């Protein structure tokens, strides 16, 4: 029987209350949202918090809304909310691609965007999605808020920029014209962690890629944004040759390891191929094609 070690439990009634509790208890405390990553780790003693702060009552963190030039997503938005959101489907179809293959519908009823990003598992899909979309994370403390871009949010496997007196409260995604995005994942069986995943987003103006990004999952100790891929996309004209070249750049700029899900060589091949496919679909979608 797997049960967590003894803990104390308290329910936060507001973001301010949650942060006050977290500040008071320091690194012995963890927030619990959906709990579908944290509780399994606690059962295995891979995580050993002494104090859990339940943030499921924080209604103020359940939202997905357009706010001027950004889409703002509350950190407690559940996978199901992301999958069902018409706003995200319209602007960022990459969320639908990814959410359809994250775990299963029952798990998606509980797991949250904020929990997924804060878990900082290198194989976690939403981190790759947010990386491709050039998202920013709003981190709140009793002093106020700071905004951290995705590429600075993860500081290592299972480690984020969020400090002991802080909380991830919102994810912001810039809204720019001519955008298209897509996600590709290979898994051993439905609902599994990725063997490799690749997300891509492009913003196209007059046939030229103004900006484009690739986000990968399960390719090494961190969720990388592939800067050389972004450099190759910027100012380029979309073509099969370009998708192929950027796929190769992505494959050459990550370090997957051999494990039960596949060999390093197989995963490197997947990075190249999935990046190519994701880019192709992202470009087609930016041109209004249903893909």
């Amino acid at each position, binding site marked *: *029987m*797997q*049960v*967590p*070690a*003894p*803990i*104390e*439990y308290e*329910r936060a009634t507001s973001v301010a209350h949650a942060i006050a509790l977290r500040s008071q208890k320091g690194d012995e405390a963890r927030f*619990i949202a959906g*709990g*579908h990553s944290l*509780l*399994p780790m606690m*059962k295995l003693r891979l995580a050993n918090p002494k104090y*859990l702060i*339940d943030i*499921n009552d924080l209604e103020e963190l359940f939202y997905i809304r357009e706010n001027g030039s950004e889409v703002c997503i509350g950190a407690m938005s559940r996978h199901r909310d992301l999958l069902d959101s018409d706003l995200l489907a319209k602007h960022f179809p990459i969320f639908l691609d990814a959410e359809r293959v994250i*775990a*299963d*519908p*029952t*798990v998606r*009823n*509980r797991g949250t965007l904020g929990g997924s990003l804060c878990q900082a598992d290198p194989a976690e899909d939403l981190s790759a999605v947010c990386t491709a979309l050039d998202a920013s994370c709003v981190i709140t403390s009793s002093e106020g808020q700071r905004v951290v871009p995705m590429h600075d949010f993860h500081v290592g496997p299972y480690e984020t920029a969020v400090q002991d007196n802080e909380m991830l409260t919102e994810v912001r995604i810039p809204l720019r014209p001519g955008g298209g995005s897509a996600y590709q994942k290979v898994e051993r069986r*439905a*609902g599994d962690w990725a063997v490799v995943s690749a997300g891509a987003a492009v913003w196209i103006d007059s046939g030229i890629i103004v900006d484009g990004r690739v986000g990968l999952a399960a390719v090494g100790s961190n969720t990388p944004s592939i800067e050389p891929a972004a450099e190759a996309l910027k100012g380029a004209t979309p073509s099969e040759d370009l998708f192929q070249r950027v796929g190769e750049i992505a494959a050459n700029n990550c370090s997957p390891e051999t494990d039960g899900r596949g060999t390093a060589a197989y995963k490197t091949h997947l990075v190249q191929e999935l990046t190519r496919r994701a880019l192709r679909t992202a470009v087609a979608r930016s041109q209004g094609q249903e893909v």
Partner: protein
Amino acid sequence: MQVNMTVNGAEVNEEIEPRHLLVHFIRDQLGLTGTHWGCDTSNCGTCVVLIDGEPVKSCTQLAAMAGGHEVTTVEGLEVDGVLDPIQEGFMQCHGLQCGFCTPGMMLTARALLNSNPNPTEEVIREAISGQICRCTGYSTIVRSIQWAADHETNVSLRSAS
């Protein structure tokens, strides 16, 4: 700590350890052993219960987290001696062999029909994709849920579950 919740319509007020998982609370403390305890890793789905009408894997929830909410277990499907159409469907269409996955399958099916009274086979298969039947009797499970959809009565009453 003290936890209060509604289980199958009845108020429950119990003393628990904060680390207590919902599945063990339901089985060992409330004695409702219809909820099965399977893989312990949120993969198999036999421990699914409804929390406020939504299927949740109770091996991956603390009992404390269900405080203040409405929990429905498989024992709550039957009302006043009348089986839920889902239960009838599993009987009519041989929706189980060993029966171990059945409570989770039926509760997930109940939640599905509450939100979508006429699901396609594809939608049914997607809805139960978080559950494993090791007898691999999926076809009959799908047929059982379709039978229930065709024989749904009193949906308004059921929708409260």
